[in-house]
């Protein structure tokens, strides 16, 4: 009889839904310091266990333990802390600005600040970044002016992108931050191409790409890993697993059966799986992968295990698909709190100094906000001249665009 039992389609479900208490008790989190640190020339095969492990440096008491401790100077740690605080303060301000109608849209990275900031600081300033829309911390950690970012969000007269892109789709050639696209995953294979070009030219620079765990289901994820593996491209391929792709938990992207880091094994690529809320672990893993890439040893995939604390975007209401207390119950905590605790434990920080820094970044954001708003907001203007809408479609404007510009007038 069993041979004739009906087939049954499996639809993955998250561990909890609205109205239920958030429960992460089934997450088996290894202790800080427990994961070995292989040499960068290890083969993917030799280090395949790391794809299922979780590299953690900061223990429950905020102490740095184990072989992955990057042993950073206190100054570097404070710089990271400040960039994370500034990112969060910036997010809060721009989120409010959207709610006030000053712009159409915004996306926060709350809870994921550690990923972008630690990774930016672990790379060289001229390494090339191919981000998604949730790595604003990369720009901030590279000291890119937040006024410029705000102008982009407002599509105002100071927007270098001339009001052409939705908010948060930043672009900064000077900061080595590639133009963000709304199409998910596309930048992942482009990062590999950039890295191949750097290798072709005998350059020293490497590339890093980011993708969310949801977008790993896109074909460009597969293209990127295949091409990076085939050509030993000097690239770091980062999967930010924040558990959620809008309303779909990571199991819908394939995370129920295997880690996202484990995807790399089939491509013969080393993978590191990292506590993405652990600044030190994230920094150390990125340094490891960067050293590997810079030594012509090829690409590394890093899964950054974290949690999307905020809504997907200002157009999203997470209370409709997940428990309200989920981020409070998230067992890996908050990246800012954890680094702060670590610094205090080192005797290199204090609650007072933290309060002072918090006020300072809030003041910086407030001042930048005023400066940006003086250049215009989407609702009130001034906006860039409308005739610029026809520019940059091509290097030279073709006859029909000149005619269309004239037809519009202005």
């Amino acid at each position, binding site marked *: 009889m069993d041979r004739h039992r009906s087939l049954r389609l499996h639809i993955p479900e998250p561990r909890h839904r609205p109205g239920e208490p958030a429960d992460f008790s089934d997450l088996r989190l290894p202790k800080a310091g427990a994961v070995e640190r292989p040499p960068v020339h290890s083969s993917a095969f030799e280090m395949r266990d790391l794809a299922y492990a979780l590299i953690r440096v900061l223990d429950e008491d905020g102490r740095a333990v184990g072989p992955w401790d990057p042993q950073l100077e206190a100054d570097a740690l404070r710089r990271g802390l400040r960039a994370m605080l500034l990112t969060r303060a910036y997010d809060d301000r721009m989120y409010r600005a959207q709610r006030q109608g000053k712009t159409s849209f915004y996306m926060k990275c709350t809870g994921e600040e550690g990923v972008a900031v630690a990774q930016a600081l672990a790379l060289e300033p001229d390494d090339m970044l191919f981000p998604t829309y949730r790595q604003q911390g990369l720009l901030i950690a590279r000291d890119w002016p937040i006024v410029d970012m705000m102008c982009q969000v407002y599509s105002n007269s100071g927007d270098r992108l001339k009001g052409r892109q939705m908010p948060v789709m930043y672009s900064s050639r000077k900061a080595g931050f590639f*133009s963000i696209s709304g199409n998910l995953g*596309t930048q992942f294979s482009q990062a590999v*191409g950039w890295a191949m070009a750097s290798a072709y030219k005998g350059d020293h620079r490497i590339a890093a790409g980011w993708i969310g765990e949801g977008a790993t289901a896109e074909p*460009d994820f597969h293209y990127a890993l295949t091409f990076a593996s085939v050509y030993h491209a000097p690239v770091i391929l980062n999967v930010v697993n924040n558990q959620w792709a809008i309303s779909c938990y990571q199991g819908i992207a394939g995370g129920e059966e295997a880690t996202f880091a484990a995807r790399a094994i089939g491509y013969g690529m080393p993978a590191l799986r990292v506590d993405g809320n652990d600044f030190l672990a994230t920094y150390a893993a990125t340094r490891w992968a960067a050293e590997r890439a810079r030594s012509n040893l090829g690409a590394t995939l890093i899964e950054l295990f974290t949690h999307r604390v905020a809504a997907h975007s200002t157009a999203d209401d997470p209370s409709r698909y997940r428990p309200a207390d989920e981020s409070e119950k998230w067992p890996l905590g908050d990246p800012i709190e954890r680094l702060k605790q670590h610094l205090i434990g080192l005797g290199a920080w204090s609650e007072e100094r933290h309060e002072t820094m918090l006020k300072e970044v809030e003041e910086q954001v407030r001042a930048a906000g005023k400066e940006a708003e003086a250049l215009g907001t989407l609702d009130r203007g001034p906006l860039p001249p409308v005739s610029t809408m026809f520019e940059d*479609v*091509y*290097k030279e404007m073709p006859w029909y665009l000149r005619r269309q510009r004239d037809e519009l007038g202005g």
Partner: protein
Amino acid sequence: MNMVQALNSAMDVMLSRDPDVVIFGEDVGYFGGVFRATDGLQRKHGKQRVFDTPIAEGGILGVAVGMGAYGLRPVAEVQFADYIYPAMDQLISEAARLRYRSAGEWWAPLTVRAPCGGGIFGGQTHSQSAEALFTHVCGLKTVIPSNPYDAKGLLVSAIEDDDPVVFFEPKRLYSGPFDGHPEKPAVPWSKHALGEVPAGYYRIPLGKASVVRAGEEVTVLAYGTLVHVAAAAADESGIDIELVDLRSLRPVDIETIVASVQKTGRCVILHEATRTGGFGAELSALVQEHCFFSLEAPIERVTGWDTPYPHAFEWQYFPGPARVARALRKVMAA
């Protein structure tokens, strides 16, 4: 040179002139391409510059966009235009819009070569003419040559162009001109004036049509294989056509088109691609908008039928000289 040799020569010239030119695609490297278009280039210029890729059109184009952002000038091959669809996201969403969305911070100076068109019993997936899918995309340029001389000059221009160019090569024309008479013996390019191709560097500007045959009675707008079909149809019907080989579909050479239709007062538009939503619809609209008071007859379109490209019914599908001649007579009778 035949068209394959002319294309090969264009790539050879550009590899020699510009160290940022790299060429890649499926079977492009060691083997020299399934149509021999890259034959010998890897041996001459090295593996780093001419190389084989995994079978992944989306990956080939994704990587090309990244290389372009770095500053290289990639020339990517898609083995058949019929297989360009997995790369559409990278072409439409990325390559075409990169300059615009970054306000000129980055651009995609890439050339995508893809053999196109039918008349070779290629069936559904080795015969398509996908150009209208690309002419609809702002930010892309679309080019289709009809002879070896133009093929080389246009490909050199495409590679040097700082905008992304989709370069369709009518594979039916690779070894010789084809006028739509499959029963006639094949004529090689060596017996045709346009098979005389200079060995060195020269270019033909993008966006410029070529009046390949001056005439008074009807303007025929064509590109690719149908340029040769149009000439045969004119000979067979005795109608004095002015034959415009568009060469670049986008940007299209409006001045040449308008000047010709204003002179003849009649217009027949040809393409192998399916009719509905084809590039002929855009051409027809442009002629109607710009030449309404010169027109003495409705604009005619002779195209592939609105069906997938069939295998057994190749010559009933392909818009051959008889169908073109019928349209020429029809506009003359109107």
